[in-house]
């Protein structure tokens, strides 16, 4: 029995020593470093954040980006600090940032909080809707003393989008099925920014409200929702032609879907439509081109 007594004494002693040696309160409240008036060394933890920083003319002040930041091309030359899902905190710190910008996903939020505890400034931005994109641009503008550029960027994007919508008109919206993944079939639901882009491009999501943001659906729903156009963002940037061929082959089994009958299955370059960033207009235009090709052909002539 004596051994157990000693063990209990040891545990109590250990806990007490821990409380004495390590300043628990201080460890908890380390995140009170005031943000700098103007961020000079910025790390971006997501490709669309990188695009925003470049669009605001902050290229010189970016000291780190994620591996998946590939636009604009100059971004690929910046120091890499891990991937979007697996950020490397050592690399972030080694870049000596005074501002780390992350998205609101769990993984990213977690990184931001860890950095905060060590004493680094971070900014968590949710960019899942078009309105949130504009907000995020303004917030980044404010943090970098680029308010003017931010206003201009937002103004520019909205102006171009308005013009596009004026060209297309809002009557008789095209029903679009946005395919994220083929096997198993997953499409974009109503509560996504893709849905917003489809609507900005004069279309309408063929899928109604769903539980998931990107609901998995069966063949039954594909036929039931009667899409006039099916769009697949290209997964493999290197071989869009290959995906186009396999897409036609795959969709051919739905012989009574209007999009298939009229051969309106499109594989489009994924970048501008899979990230919500300052190339929102370019992405929306690509979609609009799929929805109303005749309109754009006329324009070109």
């Amino acid at each position, binding site marked *: 029995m004596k051994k*157990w007594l000693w063990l209990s004494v040891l*545990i109590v002693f250990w806990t007490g020593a821990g409380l004495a*040696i390590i300043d628990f309160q201080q460890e908890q409240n380390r995140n009170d*470093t005031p943000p700098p008036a103007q961020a000079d060394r910025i790390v971006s933890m997501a490709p669309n954040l990188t695009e925003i920083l470049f669009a605001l003319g902050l290229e010189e002040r970016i000291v780190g980006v994620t591996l998946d930041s590939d636009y604009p091309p100059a971004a690929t030359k910046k120091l890499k600090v891990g991937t979007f899902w697996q950020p490397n905190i*050592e690399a972030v710190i080694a870049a000596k940032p005074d501002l780390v910008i992350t998205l609101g996903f769990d993984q990213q939020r*977690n990184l931001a909080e860890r950095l905060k505890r060590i004493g680094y400034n971070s900014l968590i931005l949710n960019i899942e809707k078009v309105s949130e994109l504009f907000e995020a641009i303004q917030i980044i503008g404010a943090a970098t003393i680029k308010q003017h550029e931010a206003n201009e960027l937002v103004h520019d994007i909205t102006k171009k989008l308005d013009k596009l919508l004026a060209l297309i008109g809002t009557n008789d919206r095209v029903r679009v099925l946005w395919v994220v993944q083929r096997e198993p079939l997953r499409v974009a639901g109503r509560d996504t920014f893709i849905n917003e882009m489809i609507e900005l491009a004069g279309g309408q999501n063929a899928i109604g409200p769903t539980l998931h943001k990107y609901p998995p659906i069966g063949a039954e729903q594909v036929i039931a929702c009667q899409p006039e156009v099916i769009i697949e963002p290209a997964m493999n940037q290197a071989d869009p032609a290959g995906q186009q061929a396999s897409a036609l082959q795959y969709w051919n089994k739905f012989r009574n879907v209007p999009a298939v009958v009229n051969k309106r299955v499109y594989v489009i370059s994924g970048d501008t439509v899979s990230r919500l960033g300052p190339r929102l207009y370019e992405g929306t235009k690509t979609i609009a081109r799929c929805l109303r090709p005749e309109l754009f052909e006329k324009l070109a002539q």
Partner: protein
Amino acid sequence: MKELLTPRKLVVRIALAGIVLIVVMFVCSLIGAESVSLKAAFRGVGEHPAVNPDYEIFVKVRLPRIILAAIVGAALACSGVVFQVLLRNPLADPYILGISSGAGLGTIIAVLSGFNWTLWGRSPIAVFAFAGALGTVWLVWFIGRLTGKFHVTGLLLAGVVVNAFFSAVIMFLTSVAQSQQIHATIFWLMGNMTEEDFFVLWIGGGCVLAGILALFNISPQLNVLSFGEDDARNIGINTARIRTIAFAVAAFITAIAVSLSGLIGFVGLIVPHAVRLVLGPDHRQLLPLSGIIGAIFLVVADTLARIIVAPAQLPVGVVTAIVGGPFFLVLLVRHSRKVSWLK
């Protein structure tokens, strides 16, 4: 014929292994995605913190992570030893009685509920994982008791079925979750090492150390248990009491490990076997040495996970299986002929 284990030999071996552990931890702390110079790291300590990235990487990121790996590795290896002897099954590991799926279920519930608080510096994921792990073990233990007192098969089957059932619930929750939430869960399920506050490490390390000492206390009785229930009782050992203590302590340190770092497989299975193969099955030696070697193994595996695909990183569970598997097979073939327990 193996020589007898004398206290002196035991102390020497533990000390040697401990020195190796410290050397390995030191060397691994110098390896990483960013090269850090110790000299630069400790120049001007105590000055304004944000100016010395070497110091912050070394002391605030890398060191806590390596200590965490050592704590988790030791906990998993020791608990693996105990489950293998309690269940008299060489396939047993710390997760066999449902701890993994219970902790996984706790995690996914925490992620889905979107809680945003901390309890003594721990996130909801860690708290729920801990609760889920202990709750499940208690449930399995309870069901096992209903099948008869320490009926090993009953206990094992209860563990397998509870595991399967909770896995099904996890699958269901995953299928209704949003993809970004699933991502967070999946990384956790593959073993997620990050730096922790020193206070968390201190308390977690203390709990694990106390658990290992408690198991060491009963290691002579565990030796007798490994001969079989009846023999142990005939010698006059209160097998029910020993089993309960061993089971509770092993489950507790596993739950601590899981709540600190997610599910890291393989350590709790192969480290005890490797030590047993090389040094023999005496638990007085097996327990402490498994703990230390488990710590060394996980520190090395985690260092590899940090650097192989730098600047990104791998889940440490991938490395433990890929590095540990072949190494273990070599040991198995080379040593199994010498050791009687396999026959």
